[in-house]
């Protein structure tokens, strides 16, 4: 092998493995800063129902419940819209409209979340309060709607790619035996693209779970524990908002500092779980017709 070739190969190798290295470093750092929590705070305290760190109350359950409520409800809103938009752009819209809609969705992805949060405070939250007759408009649902807006572009663009990857011959074959457009979408294209669509959903979940700014501005940040359906229209406090709003004040090395990193570890594991699920779904051995696709 020539010298220059060797150099290039090695450079690429280093660049490729650097992301693994960074991930490891971040993980080690999180563990180092977050692990002391388990020695400082007992499990009973960690699993208590109240988060009020300035008085030494470190119950993280309300924060986990807050994150889950907001993420799940945002997905319930985002999935029909996201996948519906992807199907429209990919299967139904004429070429001209397709070329307008696709970039528009990408522009939506580019709106900074703090701007959406601002709109949330000024427009959405008063509408929620008067529309649903709630005590306050700063609720989990308000946050979920904003998060849906944030994650829809991700879902649309990945789901649309998955639909695009379904070979044209499938649709042509279905048309040849007299299937309607709806039958083709529902029975042929969607099942064939399901792995890609699941991937889109998982990435959307990850996007919602990790979003901070918009959520902090509109969910009211009250650390309440899940207590039935009412929790969806009550204020909640998410893990990300907690880290963001409290990180600045803590004395480094204190119990409060360590537990914020511990919450970081929990978030890290949640997103790891999402990524592992999504990649195990897409690398699963495929049967029959799926083999050709994706």
């Amino acid at each position, binding site marked *: 092998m020539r010298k220059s070739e060797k150099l290039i190969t090695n450079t690429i190798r280093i660049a490729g493995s650097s992301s693994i290295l960074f991930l490891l470093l971040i993980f080690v750092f999180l563990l180092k800063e977050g692990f002391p929590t388990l020695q400082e705070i007992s499990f009973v305290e960690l699993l208590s129902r109240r988060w*009020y*760190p300035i008085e030494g109350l470190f119950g993280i359950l309300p924060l986990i419940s807050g994150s889950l409520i907001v993420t799940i409800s945002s997905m319930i809103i985002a999935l029909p819209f996201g996948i519906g938009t992807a199907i429209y752009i990919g299967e139904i819209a004429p070429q001209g409209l397709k070329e307008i809609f696709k970039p528009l969705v990408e522009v939506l992805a580019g709106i900074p979340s703090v701007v959406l949060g601002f709109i949330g*405070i000024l427009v959405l*939250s*008063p509408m929620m*309060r008067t529309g649903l007759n709630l*005590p306050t408009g700063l609720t989990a649902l308000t946050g979920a709607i904003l998060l849906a807006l944030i994650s829809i572009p991700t879902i649309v663009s990945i789901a649309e790619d998955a639909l695009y990857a379904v070979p044209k011959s499938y649709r042509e074959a279905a048309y040849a035996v007299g299937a309607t457009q709806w039958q083709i979408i529902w029975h042929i294209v969607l099942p064939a693209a399901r792995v890609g669509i699941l991937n889109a959903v998982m990435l959307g979940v990850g996007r919602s779970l990790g979003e901070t700014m918009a959520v902090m*501005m509109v969910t009211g940040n009250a650390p309440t524990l899940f207590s039935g359906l009412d929790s969806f229209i009550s204020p909640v406090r998410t893990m990300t908002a907690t880290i963001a709003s409290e990180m600045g004040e803590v*004395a480094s090395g204190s119990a409060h500092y360590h537990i914020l990193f511990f919450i970081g570890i929990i978030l890290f594991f949640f997103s790891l779980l999402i990524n592992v699920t999504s990649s195990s779904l897409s690398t699963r051995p495929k049967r029959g017709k799926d083999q050709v696709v994706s």
Partner: protein
Amino acid sequence: MKHKAPILFLLLFCAILSACQSLDQTDSEQINPDSQKTYIENKGSDTLVNLALAWAEEYQQLNPVVQISVTGGGSGTGFTSLINGTITIANASRQIKPEEIDAARENGFEPIEFIVANDAIAVIVNPENPIENLSLEQVSKIYKGEIKNWQEVGGEDRPIVKLSRETNSGTHVYFLETVIRLGSKDDNSIFSADTLLLPSSEGIIAEVRDNPNAIGYDGLGYVTPDVKTIALSQEAHSNYIIPSAETVLSGEYPISRHLYMYTRGEPKGAELAYLEWILSSDAQEITAYLGFVPVIRE
């Protein structure tokens, strides 16, 4: 080989030129010391941030050589930055805690306290809310979650939505100690869990302006005319007092406090001059203009 000689000469020439230039620069600096700017980094309490900005702007006009940067973030944030050495003056709406003094000593300095203004905490509601007066005990019970409906304090049949600043705010800590615990050291009660913790003073004002169910509290300097300030009393049925400069200075209004600036050790030079100016009557006029209560120097 022939080419090298002229190139060497050129390099030498360049070196001499650049040497001359740097000499020139040091000369001009000695002649004109005013070109050196002094920077003061000032950070902390969100209650104090607007006032600190107004002071800084005025002071920079009077002394163009001093540059002051002012940022908010909360009293706790200010102390942390002071201890970490990223700023030289911390703004605070509460006194420094013993842990923070210890941390400062570990970093090799003694925090020095200056009282730079006084502030009343106003309890605010939406203008549509018919409530005019509350006793401190009623406010405490509202925030502890014992009173959940405005009807229980003589208002309309509406749920009460409680708003507070985040826990890194000095105002939050002051309100917890003085109102919720009514100043009692043995009382361990805290905000009820469904209290909304908003990241900024503006967030509280915006929600109170918009929501007839809401109750909030904020420094008097932040309260805008489009929300309603509640008259408070120390004991039930005694005189209800509206917060103002007069009622704070006379001590009639029950919840008022000092606002502080802290320095890393005894201030020197530009910082000392700045703090002295802040305590002068000129600067305290700005204090009064922004809705805070001026400090009167003995």
